[in-house]
Every structure is written in C-alpha cells, then in structure tokens.
C-alpha cells in the first residue's frame, strides 16, 4: 500500500470471515461488499452519502460504505447486516423490527439495523431523542420513522430492564 497503484491486494474480515482479494483502487467499499463478495444485504440508495442504506460497522464505527474506497478497508473488521442473525436466529433488534412493523418495503432496513446496532452498542438504553439522532443518517421513504423508533426503543427498554434487574421480555440486541 506504500506505493501508488490502481490495484491493491487487501485483507478484510467481514462478519468474522477473512477475505483476501485484489481490488481496483477506484472500487467503492459498498461494491466490494455487494459485487465482489456477493453480500447483497448492504444496499445502495443514493451513492452520495445521504441515505445510509449502505451503512456498515467498520472497526467498531458506523460508516457509509459508499463513501469509502475498497483499499481503505484493508486490514479492517467489518460487520454487515448478514452478521446480525446468529445460528439461524434473528437478533433481538431484527425481531423487534418485525414485531413493531419497523419496515415496509425493507430497502432502508439493513442500514437502519446497522445504525441501530451501533447506537445500542454505544448506548444500550437510549432515549427516543437519542434514537432519532442515532438514525439521522438513514432515510426511509415508507414508514415515517415512527415504527422504526418504536422497534429500537423496545430493545432499549429490554436492555434497561435487564441492566436494572427488572424482568422484561426480549433482551440485548
């Protein structure tokens, strides 16, 4: 990487799996994830950094994968929406989106889930205001956001109950 080149060999860990690929420097990270690795859960809405559909968590930080080049991710650890469910079981956050009608067409959902996952990692018990700020970078053209905020708050509520020892259904995200 210390010599300028239009192609680079990169190593990226996505959802726990290590990938080695030769990439073009001009390839956007979102295309690397979707087209090269065929992980199509991550969506492209605007391609200008405005909609958040391409959000992934890179080295613990929420980012828009259309705003990075693939070689910038060399050495990175990335979480995408495919990594949320474990052993065929949806994550509590995903269950909550289903239970509270947090999605309609589903286009924004992978990005919403990643933003909500990041928010809850940073702050397991956000207020409604904090949830709204947490998903500010994610546009949804269907739901009007109300049920998305409800879905996230339900998990926050379950976290609060767990952390304070009171019983509640559900659990951590």
């Amino acid at each position, binding site marked *: 990487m210390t010599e*300028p080149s239009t192609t680079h060999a990169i190593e990226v860990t996505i959802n726990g799996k290590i990938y080695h690929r030769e990439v073009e420097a001009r390839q956007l990270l979102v295309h690397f994830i979707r087209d090269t690795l065929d992980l199509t859960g991550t969506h492209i809405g605007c391609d200008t*950094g405005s909609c958040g559909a391409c959000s992934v968590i890179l080295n613990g930080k929420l980012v828009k994968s*259309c705003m990075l080049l693939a070689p*910038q991710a060399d050495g990175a650890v990335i979480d995408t929406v495919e990594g949320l469910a474990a052993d065929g079981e949806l994550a509590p956050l995903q269950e909550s989106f289903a239970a509270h009608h947090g999605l309609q067409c589903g286009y924004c959902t992978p990005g919403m889930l990643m*933003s909500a996952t990041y928010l809850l990692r940073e702050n397991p018990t956000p207020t409604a205001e904090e949830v709204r700020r947490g998903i*500010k970078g994610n546009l949804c053209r269907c739901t009007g956001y109300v049920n998305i905020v409800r879905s996230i708050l339900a998990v926050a509520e379950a976290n609060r109950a767990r952390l304070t020892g009171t019983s509640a259904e559900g659990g951590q995200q």
Partner: protein
Amino acid sequence: MLLKSVEYVRPGSVDEALHLLRSNAGAAPLAGGQSLSNILKHRVASVDVLVDISSLDELREIQRRPDGSIEVGACVTYDELDRSLGVRAGHEIIARVASHIEDSQIRNRGTIGGNCCLSDPTNNLPPLLIALDATMHVRSAGGSRRVPVEEFFKGYFLTALEPGELLTSVEIPALPAGARAGYASLNVAADSKAIVRSAARVKVNEVIEEARVVLARVAPVPIRHRGMEEALVGAAPTAESVRAAADTIGEDLEPVADSHGSSEYRRQMARVVARRAVLEAIGQGGGM
C-alpha cells in the same frame, strides 16, 4: 458508481505523504473522504493519486498544553473531537459543534482538516475556528509554516494551501480570561446544511472588552463582522446592547440567494444568529 481510474497509496508517515504529494502532480490527500468520495464520483476534480493520510498517527493526536491551548491533528474526526476530554476541558464548544455535524456515519469519518481544507461555506467548523482565533499548521516537503485562520479560507473551495502542502494540525488558543464562545446556526433541518450561521468569542470585564463575531454563508468564506464587533466593545453585556450591535449587520452584506433563502432573508437571519451566538458567549442564551 464506477469512478475514473485512480491510484491509491497509504503512506507510512507525514514525510512520505509530503514526498508523494510533491512527486505526483495529480495527487490529492484523502482524509475522511466524506466530501472527496463524492467529488470523485461526480468527476468534478481530476485526481490521479489518492494519498490516504487518514490513519497517520502524527495527524491523529490531540494535545492539550499547560497554557490551555490545544493542538488538534488534521485527521482527528468529528466524533473524536466530541469525545475528547482534552477538547472538552477548555473548548467544550468545539465538541458540541462537532457533535452536530450531519450524522453519526459522517462524524465517524469526517476530519477537522478535511472540513477546513474543502472550504465549503456550509461547513460547520471554519466559522468557529475563526471566532476562536486558531492557527493552521501547514507542511510541505520543503518546510513548514503557520497560517492565521483568517488568512486560510480564500474562497469557495479555495484555501491558502499551495499544491503539495498538507494541513497537519489546528492550534486553538485557550479562551482569554473572562472570554466565552457561542455558536448559533439556522439549518435546513436538524444537524444539516446551514442557511446562515454565526460563531462568536466575547470577553467581558464588566463591559464587553473584546468581541470576535463571525458570520458564515453570507459571503464565499466566513467573515468577521467588524461593525458588530466595534458596536459591542465598550457596551454593557446585556441583551439590549447585543441587539443594537446586531442591527449593524445590514446592507454591507450581499449574501447569495438560493433555494433555501433569498439574499434579504439571509441578511435578516444573520442578525438573529449573530445575536444568539453573542448572547451565548456572554452567558445569556443557549446558542445553536
């Protein structure tokens, strides 16, 4: 989107980055990429070599000095500014302003250096850094220089940087004794593009002794409004005198008109945000 073919390089040090910038005519630094990616997508600038400076440790430090000043590396992100105890200790307003830039994804990547070097008149940090009287530390393969922040922003997407130069850090002095800062912004929506905004630093010692009042989006670059500053100095720190001083903002400005506001609207709102920023700086308002 497919970009034009481009070379990418991740140098191991600032010296290496400077060498790469000097030896490649079409080279540009890549910091957070939160503007440059879109510039490349739209092919509005031609870049042949992207020199990725974003992970250089030398550009990622925040140092707080005994005199209360801070030196912030160019590649410190907005999120890191917000979380930094060193920044919050004496410059809480920088953390606050950084925490309201657009959204969490952009705050996790965008850098103080990129925010300044782009010289986009809607960017949040330049007016604040002018109000706080920052100094820009600049290096090239041939040497280094310091540029007072007021001489850094030259025009729309234009700064004092010469080809081959890097902004390496931003030095922000401690607030003088008795001085506070304020920041107020009229945005298109919460935490989004500004229609007009103001930042201020005001020193009070019974009366107002010193005032720096900066307006953004009323000219190609953020400007100090000398009329309002002069009207404030010597006045009592009261809402009435701040209002009177803000009324000096007027026909001297020719703000751009666009879909978010006419020139006249911006002029009127400039008075409002300047008043709010100064009220916050004298401890009489919420700002923002």
